[in-house]
């Protein structure tokens, strides 16, 4: 069988970084080939070269055995290669359907007028194939990150390519959508499409991939069949050593002071009567399906969005939080799930971003920046979180996705808040770094910080949480203990729909599918 | 030997200034000197004119022609010219200083007053009139407005000035202004347009509103002459822009030759209408 794609000896450097060093890769028809590596290993860069977005410095790319040049995204499309980007690349002001078919709009009337009906019909058909409930006429800017990701996937599917590159497609997705995606992947695979699958969620590998290629520092490490390889082997190939995963014993924090208490929080449909409390030294996991309202709750408490009603008490006294500034002053920090939009000034350098929430601390005479201290602080976090960057003055937009995420974390660590909301903190972060972040969270909790961790990865929730709050359709449907809770327990609460009043069978079916 | 005389004027694009330029060029040809002619885009740009004057002085001119937008602002540079022994000839409106050897000018105030008298005569000494002026703050704008308004107040008490509006000499803007004035004043008898663009705007506005009224313009130009010919405009004041330009250069050349020139060269102004337009004396001071 001729490989669909063969890449050999690919080099690529950016100012200050050699992203790829003699990288190679091979993709067969009808296979799902996982591409693994730490953050900044060069996975996205390799795939962007294949998709015509970057130009290679050296090396060869063969498609169907013939050596090719891929000077533009169009050229890649013509070769039958399409890509789902790691970072969302959508036109927010356009509708979902318009985004999917941009550049390939169906026409009518002498080929002049757009056929909007056909456009929406075609998009609806793709959504139907994906079992996705989404009006193709919705403006993309109004959708949640997860929905936007689904639109990206729909767009890639619409090309009907023979090579489909998926760069962390599930980073923003929940189990339900992930399962749906896998179903589609299997279908495509059966049609002979070759799929490159990049992910940092290790458990997905076993489930979906046939072979794994591991990269480290821009170079090729090896290719192995997934079925016959253990996770530990892959991880040690990635990070150059083996990692041990252990769930730490849950500390007894029942006697600790309550630092944050929320009562009857309300806002429209998104938040309905949410009450919970958070203790010193506790990690409270927030689980739920996509759109359950976890982000909304966090943003509302943080003062980013206005509230209709409810009471927030910090350290026992009722407080009015009208803006993020009020929240930060009360010692509350919030790491957004959408780093590009809400987390980072991507055009500014690493150091500036890291000290942004506490610039005040780095001022002399209340005005002048203490640049040396800023740089020292930034460097200490770069070292501590192993952020891969040429220097602290590199612009954040030039870093790999995972490293950008680490900068958001560093930002709030410098601020040293007593109450921290982590919204999908490990989104797009590699296994090694994930472990580091878990350790960090545990250390923070041990130091007496109170942490809310919103996550869509159930294993992560189960591993980290001292208690688990579950949301569904804007309501808090229950709080479970960290010890002894199973994925099924969580899913039961997460699907306790108000509207459909849980007709037992559908709920449990959904739960079964979601937990696998 | 090359004698270079820059003229720094108040404007450049308007037909009035183009006519001044033409006169200056004519004199330059006759006396075999080289001139340049420059002016800012609008008569409010006092500092831009100062920069032009400064650049003109940097070119080591033999003499200088200058129409000041604000005479005070230019005094330091004029002093510099004086100490470099560069004679300065003021033109259009004068420079309030004894530095210029002479001033080639017409009296805008008296000219506008003549327009006021003509207006009074044509509307029968009473009724509502209005003014469309090109600029609220520039010397020419103020002089023409005040010359007209004061004369009406002094000599024609039964005439009521209902509105004075400013249109930057922009034809289109002046048209719209005229239309709103006419709309607001159904009994309006006459409008004075204080420069070419304003006058044409008044004619256009009256035409578009289909209103008969006495229009008195200022300056000339093809369209204004046509309007007078067609009876749309009663008449207009003209200065002698070509003469101003000509006399400015001529005075500069004379001074350079050591000849004495009068302190003021009055280039005069005229009221022209259908009856005297073809009079050679008048035709000579009109431009297209």
């Amino acid at each position: 069988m001729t490989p669909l794609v063969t890449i050999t000896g690919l080099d690529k450097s950016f100012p200050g970084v050699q992203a790829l060093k003699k990288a190679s890769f091979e993709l067969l028809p009808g296979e799902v080939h996982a591409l693994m590596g730490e953050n900044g290993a060069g996975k996205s860069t390799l795939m962007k070269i294949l998709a015509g977005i970057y130009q290679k410095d050296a090396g060869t790319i063969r498609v169907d055995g013939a050596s090719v040049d891929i000077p533009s995204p169009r050229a890649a499309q013509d070769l039958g290669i399409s890509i789902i980007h790691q970072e969302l690349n959508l036109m927010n002001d356009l509708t979902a359907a318009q985004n999917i078919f941009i550049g390939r709009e169906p026409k009518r009337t002498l080929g002049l007028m757009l056929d909007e009906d056909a456009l929406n019909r075609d998009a609806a058909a793709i959504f139907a194939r994906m079992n996705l409930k989404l009006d193709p006429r919705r403006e993309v800017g109004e959708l949640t990150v997860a929905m936007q990701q689904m639109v990206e996937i729909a767009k890639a599917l619409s090309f009907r390519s023979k090579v489909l590159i998926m760069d962390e497609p599930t980073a923003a997705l929940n189990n339900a959508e992930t399962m749906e995606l896998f179903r589609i992947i299997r279908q495509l695979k059966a049609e002979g499409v070759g799929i490159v699958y990049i992910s940092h969620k290790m458990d997905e590998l076993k489930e979906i991939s046939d072979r794994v290629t591991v990269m480290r520092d821009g170079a090729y490490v090896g290719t192995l069949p997934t079925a016959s390889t253990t996770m530990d082997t892959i991880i040690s190939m990635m990070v150059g050593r083996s990692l041990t995963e252990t769930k730490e014993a849950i500390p007894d924090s029942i006697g600790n002071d309550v630092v944050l208490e929320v009562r009857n929080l309300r806002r429209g449909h998104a938040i309905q009567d949410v009450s919970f409390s958070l203790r010193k030294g506790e990690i409270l996991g927030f689980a739920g399906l996509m759109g359950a309202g976890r982000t909304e709750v966090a943003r509302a408490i943080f003062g980013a969005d206005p509230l209709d009603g409810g009471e927030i008490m910090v350290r026992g006294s009722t407080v009015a939080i009208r803006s993020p500034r009020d929240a930060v002053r009360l010692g509350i920090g919030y790491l957004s799930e959408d780093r590009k939009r809400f987390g980072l000034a991507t055009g500014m350098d690493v150091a500036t971003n890291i000290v942004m929430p506490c610039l005040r601390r780095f001022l002399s005479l209340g005005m002048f920046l203490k640049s040396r201290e800023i740089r020292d602080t930034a460097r200490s976090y770069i070292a501590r979180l192993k952020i891969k960057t040429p220097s602290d003055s590199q612009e954040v937009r030039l870093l790999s996705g995972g490293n950008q995420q680490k900068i958001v974390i560093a930002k709030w660590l410098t601020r040293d808040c007593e109450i921290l909301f982590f919204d999908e903190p490990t989104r797009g972060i590699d296994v090694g770094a994930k472990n580091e972040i878990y350790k960090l969270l545990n250390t923070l909790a041990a130091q007496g910080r109170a942490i809310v961790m919103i996550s869509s990865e159930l294993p992560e929730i189960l591993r980290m949480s001292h208690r688990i709050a579950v949301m569904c359709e804007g309501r808090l449907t229950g709080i479970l203990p960290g010890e002894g809770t199973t994925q099924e327990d969580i899913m039961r609460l997460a699907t306790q729909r108000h509207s459909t009043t849980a007709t037992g069978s559908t709920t449990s079916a959904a739960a079964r599918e979601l937990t696998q | 030997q090359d004698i270079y005389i820059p003229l720094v004027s108040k404007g450049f694009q308007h037909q009035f200034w183009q006519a001044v330029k033409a006169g200056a060029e004519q004199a330059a040809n006759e006396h075999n000197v080289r001139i340049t002619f420059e002016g800012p885009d609008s008569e409010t740009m006092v500092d831009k004119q100062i920069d032009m004057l400064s650049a003109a002085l940097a070119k080591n001119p033999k003499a200088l022609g200058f129409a000041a937008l604000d005479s005070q602002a230019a005094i330091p540079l004029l002093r510099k010219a004086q100490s470099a022994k560069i004679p300065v000839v003021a033109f259009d409106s004068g420079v309030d200083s004894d530095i210029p050897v002479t001033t080639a000018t017409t009296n805008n105030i008296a000219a506008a007053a003549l327009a006021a008298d003509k207006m009074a005569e044509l509307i029968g000494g009473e009724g509502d009139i209005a003014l469309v002026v090109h600029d609220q703050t520039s010397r020419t704008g103020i002089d023409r407005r005040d010359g007209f308004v004061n004369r009406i107040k002094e000599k024609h008490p039964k005439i009521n000035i209902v509105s004075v509006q400013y249109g930057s000499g922009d034809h289109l803007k002046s048209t719209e202004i005229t239309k709103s004035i006419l709309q607001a004043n159904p009994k309006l008898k006459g409008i004075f347009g204080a420069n070419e663009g304003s006058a044409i705007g008044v004619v256009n506005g009256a035409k578009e509103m289909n209103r008969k009224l006495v229009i008195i313009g200022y300056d000339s130009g093809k369209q204004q002459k046509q309007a007078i010919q067609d009876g749309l405009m009663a008449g207009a004041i003209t200065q002698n822009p070509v003469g101003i330009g000509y006399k400015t250069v001529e005075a500069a050349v004379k001074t350079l030759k050591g000849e004495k020139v009068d302190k003021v060269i009055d280039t005069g102004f005229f009221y022209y209408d259908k009856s005297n337009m073809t009079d050679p004396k008048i035709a000579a001071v009109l431009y297209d």
Partner: protein
Amino acid sequence: MTTIAQQTALAAGKATVFSPGAWQKILAFASLVVLMTVFSIASENFLQPDNIIGILQATAVNGVLAVAATFVIITGGIDLSVGTLMTFCAVIAGVFLTYWGLPMPVGIMAAIAAGALAGSVSGVLIAKMKIPPFIATLGMMMLLKGLALVISGTRPIYFNDTPNFPVISQESLIGEILPFLPIPNGVLILFVVAVASSIVLTRTALGRYTFALGSNEEAVRLSGVNTDFWKIIVYTVSGAICGIAGLIIASRLNSAQPALGQGYELDAIAAVVIGGTSLSGGRGTILGTIIGALIISVLTNGLRILSVAQEWQTVVTGIIIILAVYADILRRKS
């Protein structure tokens, strides 16, 4: 679920030219209605048919220029050259008709072609040479201003040899058919240009790419669309529309005035932004732009009719423009 229905209604409103959604939008521009009401009460002369037609006619030039600017602004660009480009095209018409004595249709085509050409030059500077739109069009503004003066010999060009020329904007085709509605042709042209542009923006590929470019150019490029090409087309179309504005103003003044035009870009851009189009690109409507242009004309006309002193006119205009936009922001919030 109700929200999806609402969304659909909204999307539908956006996609059609004068659907009920669009009418709702007109009403939504309360500022215009409020302004007109206030002026009608303050002066009986305001609501006269003559004056309303005068206001419409005064909107024609700025309206067409604003439509041209809308295209560019939706792509996230800006066009400072609309005013002087208009003048340049008027001068070109003058050269063809008066200096060379060619027939009127040739002059009209020449003016529009000159506009398209100049627009495409801006487009190439911006798309290919990556010069920021502000600078590229600032340069073009100066270039065209100078060229208009050079070509015309710094003299107005009159259209006396083309007796039909004033018909373009002054006479009334509608008035001939419906004598009680003597809307001048200039206004008719504005209407046609607006409707055509609205269709282009909402129903054609060009329109789609115009919005897409302003929304996320990189994403469009990564989708395999030739963004440079479409950007050039947008500027070309915008330039051609400026050519139409040049014809309207030349016909109205029965002359090409080479010195006029600078400063008109600000009014045009203001109309676009008052009409709700965002300067950062990606959203905007022609209907909004027209309403923006009308707000400016009504305001100017009303204050003049009330004989407010000119310096106060400026003050009041500044305040009302801010209030009008603020009212719109409040409305959209609620």
